[in-house]
């Protein structure tokens, strides 16, 4: 009985994440303002990070991948190996957060400079001005 509710909940998680990807791709393609496109790009990056962390989750009896003391015995290490969550996706996600943030900061600087030179942030009008 509880395993059926669990399976339904996990299908619902994936449905929500796919819905988030669809909303952010709609925001990048359809909306004409440059700052709105940058907001939608940041939402897309966060959804991809959440997908990666879902891959490393362990369902029953999970624990944080940090050991609570400096000198462990061998039995405590074997218990730690059997109950902790995968630490490898978390290391990759920290790198991905830094790179997404530096790209976004650079894009906002470029958008402000574009407004100073062309006078508009609307993509449909800026295409016609041509330099």
């Amino acid at each position, binding site marked *: 009985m509880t395993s059926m509710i669990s*399976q339904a909940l*996990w*299908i619902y998680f*994936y*449905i929500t994440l*796919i*819905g988030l990807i*669809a909303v952010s*791709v*709609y925001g990048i*393609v*359809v909306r004409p303002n440059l700052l709105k496109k940058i907001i939608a790009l940041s939402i897309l990056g966060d959804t991809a990070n959440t997908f990666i962390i879902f891959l*490393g*989750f*362990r*369902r*029953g009896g999970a624990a944080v*991948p*940090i*050991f*609570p*003391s*400096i*000198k*462990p015995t*061998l039995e405590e*290490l074997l218990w*730690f*190996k059997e109950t*902790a*969550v*995968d*630490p*490898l996706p*978390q*290391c*990759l996600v*920290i*790198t991905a957060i*830094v*790179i997404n943030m*530096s*790209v976004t*900061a*650079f894009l906002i*600087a*470029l958008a*402000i*400079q574009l407004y*100073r030179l062309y006078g508009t942030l609307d993509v449909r009008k800026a295409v016609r001005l041509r330099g």
Partner: protein
Amino acid sequence: MGVIVKRPYSEVVIGLGVALLLVLTLFAVIAGATGFTPKEDIRPLAKFYLYYAINWHEKKYWAASPEAVNSMVWDYRGYDTLYETSVFFLAIIGAIAVFRIPKVKDVFTKGILSGKGLSLIVKTITKLVIAFVLIVSIAIAVHGNLTPGGGFQAGSAISIATLLAIAAFSRIFLEERKITTKLMLPIRVLGVLGIGLLALGPGLIALSGVTSFVIQNQPKPWANWGFIPGIGPFWLSGNQFFYNFCEFVAVGAGFTVIYLIFSIPELIYKKVLGK
């Protein structure tokens, strides 16, 4: 702003395409193509990292740190972090190059900004909050190899303190106390230089005959020297403590430069661009 424009047909087609992609992916997930049930076991590579991160009985592959994620960021997968730090460095340089910092006599904002700041209640509470933020961010940086945290998290948190000072007091307050871009850019370069020396130093020692490799932390069976894991009551975990501190300095100074440049008023840039 009050005119309603009719949507062209290409946008309707794009919307329908996105909806079709959504329905097809749903069908694939529900039919079990991506393996929707969560697993009860993890991969053997993750078990290797968890077992050997702090193992006093078999010191062949240990990293001397009870925190598995931080030891993987700086020791087991150190190349990824090296390239990520250089990408961050180059992005800040790119943003400064696009913005073109004006000359010194243009950027002194005393005649343009008023310099009064916000009211007295806001200033008093901001002083308390800045003190708390400084203490918490230094604690996250220094304890990075024992508790959750690390260099990058602490650098982001300490740049919020500069931002609060710009908002509650004014930019003139910081300029008169000599916190300018001229001071923060060399601090940032010093931080990244520290990371580079700690990473490439062991590789250069290999030129003099001792076997070692780039980004080395603890002695291995084929390379027989390493950093000390602890001095007295301080547990340093080899060189992870120094890596965390240098990254904290570099990231904090980088974001402070970005905030100081973005808060220059637009009149100065219009004068520089000649409009």
